């Protein structure tokens, strides 16, 4: 659990965070099974997107407004995602995880993971989210075709990204070229 290495605050804070994570993990294990290694990575990736994607100015609201990482549908991360974003801040906004059952529930949100459970309704969901400044992420095979922005693909046991820059741009999001270089760029029509 030492992969989070904040600069500065020191060992005490790190220790506290570890203890908390262990407590939470313990609690999560009590409610659901621990996520696979794949979803642990995907959780981290979800967090990392916040560093490589720029949201339009003012879309996050005031300084107290949280940076929301949402999960729509069945949550495959368990408590891991919560542990990952715990205590993190993006541009001063505290990071929080919110889970939605339905697309209508999705409120202020910056990164939205659309679970595989929603595969059948993807087009509707994405169409409904259209125009909002939300980075949509999913791992369904028809995710890109349905208009999703970032799709997780498994290649040779590794998670690869396929990004539809057009879709992100329509949502007012700017994806860092560095991220684009580490990913494959696709369009809705190609898929």
């Amino acid at each position, binding site marked *: 659990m030492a992969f989070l290495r904040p600069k500065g605050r020191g060992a005490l804070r790190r220790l506290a965070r570890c203890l908390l994570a262990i407590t939470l993990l313990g609690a999560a294990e009590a409610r659901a099974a621990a996520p696979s290694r794949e979803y642990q990575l995907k959780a981290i990736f979800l967090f990392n997107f916040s*560093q*490589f994607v720029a949201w339009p100015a003012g879309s996050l609201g005031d300084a107290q407004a949280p940076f929301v990482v949402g999960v729509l549908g069945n949550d495959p991360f368990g408590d891991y995602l919560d542990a990952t974003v715990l205590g993190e801040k993006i541009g001063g906004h505290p990071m929080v995880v919110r889970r939605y059952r339905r697309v209508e529930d999705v409120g202020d949100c910056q990164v939205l993971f659309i679970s595989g459970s929603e595969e059948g309704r993807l087009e509707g969901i994405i169409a409904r989210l259209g125009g909002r400044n939300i980075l949509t992420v999913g791992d369904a095979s028809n995710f890109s075709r349905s208009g999703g922005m970032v799709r997780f693909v498994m290649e040779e046991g590794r998670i690869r990204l396929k990004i539809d820059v057009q879709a992100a741009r329509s949502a007012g999001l700017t994806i860092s070229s*560095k991220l684009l270089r580490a990913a494959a760029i696709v369009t809705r029509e190609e898929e």
Partner: protein
Amino acid sequence: MSFEDLPIRRKLMTIMLGTSGVVLLLVCSVFLGYEFFTFRTSSVQQLSTLGEVIASNSTAALAFDNRDDASEVLAALAAERHIVAACLYDNQGRVFARYPSGSGDAVFPALPGADGYRFEKNHLAGFAPVVQVKGRRLGTLYLRSDMAALFDRLRLYAVISVLVIGGSSMVAYVLSRKLQKQISGPILALAETAKAVSERRDYSVRARTFGRDETGALTAAFNEMLAQIQEQNLALQRAYDELRQTQQAILQQERLRALGQIASGVAHDINNAISPASLYAEALLEREPNLSARARSYLTTIQRAIDDVAQTVSRLREFYRQRKPQITLTPVDLPQWVGQMADLTRAHWADMAQQSGISVEMRMELLPALPVVLGVESEIRDALANIIFNAADAMPDGGTITIRTRVAGPGGADGRSGAPAHATVEISDTGIGMDEETKRRCFEPFFTTKGEGGTGLGLAMVYGAMRRHDAAIEIDSAPGRGTTFRLCFPLPAEPVELAPPAASGPAAAKRLRVLVVDDDRVLLDSIAETLEYDGHQIVTANGGQRGIDEFLAGQRAGRPFAVVITDLGMPEVDGLRVAAAVKSVSPGTPVFLLTGWGQGMAEEGRAPENVDRMLTKPPKLRELREALASV
């Protein structure tokens, strides 16, 4: 060879080259040092910038676990050939991607170290954080650069430095070769001159002056010094020559003086001894008509022999004698005497030469109207004879003796206005000649080149005779070139005529009372007897004191003496005291001084005071009579 001993040219060159070399070396070293440190700093900066770029490009790869992308980013380092190794650690400190791609783990530090770059042994290496958003570290970049760039740079600068120093030294060498002459040139010229002076002792050389700097001043001072030395040298040489000449003249005079004194003493004794013989022989021949022819012949021979002795003695005396005050110079007919010289000396040069089988000729080149000079015939004759003898002796293989006469000076043939007029007799031979040494010493008494055959007195007598005549002697001679003696007699201010031969008849019979004083009994008697025969009344006194007593007695008795004849050299009371005593009593009484060394007195400047007439020994009856007749 130490630096002090180097030639000044090389010293100057060494100083100039050394100075410029050291300065250049210093500049290059400082430059190189500065380069070294700035290059290290800039190397760190460059590496750190590169690290930032790579790290920045690696964020997404690390964030999304894309090793291929990470490797690709690192592969871009191939463009930086000094980067020898690089790797990315993930946020757990595991190696995530590496460069070059195939390197093993041993190439990289097992765990990322502190951020920043540092110099290791041969490398510059360090860690840089990989951060996308402030506060979230995604991993660590490790970069290692070799120092080749630095070394390359340093090598380049070293090469440039060497080239610059080499090139500058060459330029400095060429320039200093030219420029050092400005300084070394004058000094070398000066040294060259100094060397020439000390080696050749030639003080007439002068160093060349190049400019008016210190060296110029030195050169000028040196030249000034040389001029002074030269001047002093010259003065010294002149003084030395003068001193030498004076010394030789003094030596010559001293010798002649010493000889004259000896001769004077000897002459006195001989003259005393032969005086009676001379007087008696003359008296006998004159007063005894009944002598047999044989006796008369014997007496004549005796008289001639005495004359010869007297002659010889007088010649001895003449070595050093100022002009005899009582002997007046008489007009001398030089041409006549010179003309006779050939006959007078023929026995020596012609007859002796014939016996030796060689031929000696004599030529005469005489000026017919040579003026009359004042002198003593016998001395001039002897001088000429001596020189002719020497000329003949100088020609062992035969030759020619030439005698010339001429007149020089004002009114003379050659018209030299400055010199006093003089008549010159020149005697030249074609013989062996004289070297400088002989020429210088030939007038010294006892100096001879004829070995046992010469007395060394001939030319010394010539010298004495010429001095007495105020005549100059010149010698032109060189070994193998013959010798010319030139006797220059001063001409009298007023032309003189030859005196008619003196008529010497028997004295007028005048009877006088005469006091004769001498310490020699025999001489006293001989004078008394001969004079008494002439009718004079003679009183003799044996010794000076007796002479004075006798004279005073005569005065007191009223029978004063008409004349006093006294010998000069007597023990206790000499002739001069007798003369003084006589004159103190009766100043009018004539005193005749009879002496064998009267010349010695004259030459020492003692004027014979109280003496009316000097008579030489041996006394001639004729002279005595003449002297008494003059009273």
